[in-house]
């Protein structure tokens, strides 16, 4: 498998570290004291057979977290984007 890093281009798998489901958002401690909200974030997963939005960490490259949409049945990658879009003032 290869992932097309928006900064570095197409790179082989061994440059990346898989970093899990990208659909969960860490709850806000102030707002979300309820355990079930945390259960959702830390433990429960949709684990779909098909398109899966997930984080990949380009650890042997630019060290960006990428949000990759990949089909878990075919490993075809539909889209790749940066987890954090560069700010307007920054580089393209």
């Amino acid at each position, binding site marked *: 498998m290869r992932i097309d890093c928006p900064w570095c281009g197409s790179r082989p798998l061994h440059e990346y570290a898989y970093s899990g489901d990208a659909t969960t958002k860490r709850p806000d*401690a102030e707002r979300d004291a309820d355990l079930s909200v945390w259960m959702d974030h830390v433990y429960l997963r949709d684990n779909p057979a098909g398109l899966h939005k997930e984080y990949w960490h380009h650890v042997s490259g630019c060290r960006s977290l990428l949000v990759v949409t990949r089909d878990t049945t075919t490993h075809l990658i539909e889209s790749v984007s940066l*987890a954090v879009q560069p700010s307007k003032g920054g580089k393209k």
Partner: protein
Amino acid sequence: MNQQCNRSSDGGMIDRSKIIKFQFDGRAYEGHPGDTLASALLANGVILTARSFKYHRPRGICTAGPEEPNALVTLGRKGRSEPNIAATVIELFEGLEARSQNRWPSLRYDLLAVNSLIKPLLSAGFYYKTFMWPRSFWYALYEPMIRRAAGLGALQNRPDPDRYEHAHIHCDILIVGAGPAGLVAAKEASRSGARVLLVDDQPRPGGYLSGESLEIDGQPGAQWAHEFADELRAMDNVRMLARTTVTGRYDGMTFCAVERVSDHLRARNTKVADLPRQRLWTIHAEQFICAAGAIERPLVFDDNDRPGVMLAGAARRYLNQYGVLPGREVLIFTNNDDAYLTARDLSAAGADVIVIDTRKKAPAAKLLPGRLKVFFEHALTDVSGHNSLSSATMTPLVVKGPKQTMRCDLICISGGWNPTTHLLSHLGQKPQWSQKIAAYTMIDSGSNAFVTGGAAGLFELTQGMEDAAKTGRNAARACGFSTEERSVLPLVSPNSSYAIEPFWRLPKQLSDGSKSFVDLQNDVTVGDLELSEREGFGHAEHAKRYTTLGMGTDQGKLSNVNALGLLAELRDQTLSETGTTTYRPLYGPVALGALAGQRTGAEFAPVRHSAMHDWHAEQGAVFTHAGLWLRPYYYPRGDEGFATAVTREVRAVRSGVGMVDVSTLGKIEMKGPDAGNFLDHLYINSFSKMKIGRARYGAMLREDGMMFDDGTVSRLSREHYFITVTTVNAASVLQHMEFCHQTNWPELDVQFCSVSEAWSAMAVAGPKSREVLERVVEDLAIDNGAFPFMAVGNGTIGGAFVRIFRISFSGELAFEVYTDASYGQSVWEAIMRAGQSLDITAYGTEAMTVMRTEKGHVAGPELDGRTTAADLGLGRMMSQKKDFVGRRMAVRDDLVLDTVKQLVGLKPLLEGASFKMGAHLVEDPTGIGANVSQGHVTTAVYSPACDHFIGLALLSGGRNRVGERLYAVSPLHNEQVEVVVSDPVFVDPAGERTHV
């Protein structure tokens, strides 16, 4: 004996002017350059080459390619000995030594051939039904017996003297197969400018053409292929790899291929030592063209495994490519037109040939000279001969007619051709049954992939090349190149046609009950498949697993389709309904050494050394492995043992001064207006309000509330922090921080990166540590007033910039000195020199462990991923005022019970007693066997300060059990020691020594 008695006087692609000497089973033979071991054996009239797996039946050479199921030999000697290599793929070299296998005492007289006699008992799956009575016999007798019979060849327990390497290659279009289709496709694709990689498993290009007598553009086919390939090779954008098998297709257009670099050079004394034996290629392509040709399948009939029964295409190849006439009295048994080419060529070479065709008629019959007899609607039965053939009988299939028994020394069989689509299936595409060619083809080759030539089921050469040209252009277009439609196709003469009618097995009434083999290597017969179906294992996958069909080294390349045809017949299904089993990588067997590449032995993983490593080594340090690092474990002096040295090192620190290399710690530099805020999110305690120029111990959790790591965080300026993390977690903590920043708190303005390799670090510890450092540190006052406990400052040592942190892991007055890694050793040596008069002592990781245990500091054994901060006595550090990673999950109901395991200290009840790390704590040592463990010893050391053993342990409800007596039991050592639970801090509980 008559050397090379079967060698023709001319023809073929061998160099008759040179002789190669080789041995098979200890006997000397001769062959020529261009031979394989198989062709050379056939040239010398060697028919019997192997014994089969289960029945030990005599077997000969069946094919001329990597699909060979029978003729497996052990090649080479000692460390280079290699079992199970097909004689058909071994390029002959001077001095080659091969041995037959799976026989005792000899190939000709094999005692285990007795298995053939008890065949009625050894049917498919027989072992599931038996060997159960009496139960004890299974262990004592049956299982050892089964295991002894296992395997074909034997592997030597010797290291491999050869070298392997890995390499990557990128291309626009990967073409597998340099036969006519692959060559034409490559030409067409490369004309567009696309970068083409053409890979073929043979020494020379040509594929199918090498074994044929046809002409292309007026030249012999093989010669045309070579010239065509030479033209391709001259192009800048074409690369060709010979002797290279593409073994697997992986996701993302990645392919694995193995190149046999030097096996064939071994004996010629070229500079083999400089070459790897094999090279594993990772190929990255945009588009893939499968032009891998087709593999012939056998016919299934009684005793179809006798030595001398050979695939028709193979016999033709032996003649045309190797100049070997493998038989003179030849029966050709076929259900398709292709075998007629064999009849024509062998006959032209002087053999007596008779064709037996299962069909009513054959368009190809017109190719044959008139004198050549064809028996239509006949089958071959009653094959006789043991170690070689003597005769066989032609039996009418439909009407009752006369049988005719003929002498023969070669039977050529053809059951049709199977397109080689394995690589297209590796990503899950399923082949479809084609009635027209009676074979499975790949109609949908999947994304970014094409199939052409024989692999596409196009068995007529002109048609195959025409399609290949188109495919080459299409692939180039798919890569974004533009192509012209112009192409002049070579002229083939004579162009052959292909017609076939499936014939899955001899009709029952014609069989005399002899074994008809479907899988030659694993000895799976028609009877086995029938039994399998009878018992409910009729699904293709069940039949495979029940009978072991297709599980040999050939992975069913010859047997699978025949088995599926047979199963379809038995189950009254179409072959589309039967479907196939799953084709998986590898296409052909690959040495684990080649897959491993350079990563073996000492190169299995990199070794990391600190900048002071040479000094440690010079001092005679004994090293220990910590992740990839080698760290000084202890520094023995004279004939000191482990315990003595460690105790000496600890005493030196506690009473004077010592120094330890802590360069392996992970180090992270963090800057930005929100750095403090970010650290507050990561750690259970706070750093945003910490004073500049101060360090603080910090602990961080995983989001599930368990302890993740600990270390120190120092504030160097308003927006600048320096962080240390444990050696083992150096990489994962940085990853965690980046993950948290980029997903949870991207709005925070903070930057950080690892500086682990940039800094060397050493801890100078002991009551005299300041005295030593004051002798060398410049530009920084380190007296207690100016530089109190947990102070941080910059200075120089011998002109080198240093950061000094007054922090202590040992519990003594101590300083950690960080410097640019390139000055690491000189700063270390400067401090050593300065401390010489104070008897400064280098200490290793074990002395560090002893001292941190004496202080009750936690480390790896306590941070085992199952403990919370509270369990380890760090609960009060958890800030109530802020959110941090793991905060919520750390206080789940069952994690805050009184009974959770908590950190305690341990002392032996009897002074002088010792206990083991990994011992468990129980109240009653007689209860072993029931689940009575209440905790376990995480660390156990002899404490010089206490002068007895001490330990740390995680004990259920431990904090309320101080003073309680328990047993530390280690059944593995047959040991039980009475211990007393104590506070985990054994030395200087008030922490006064660090403050002086």
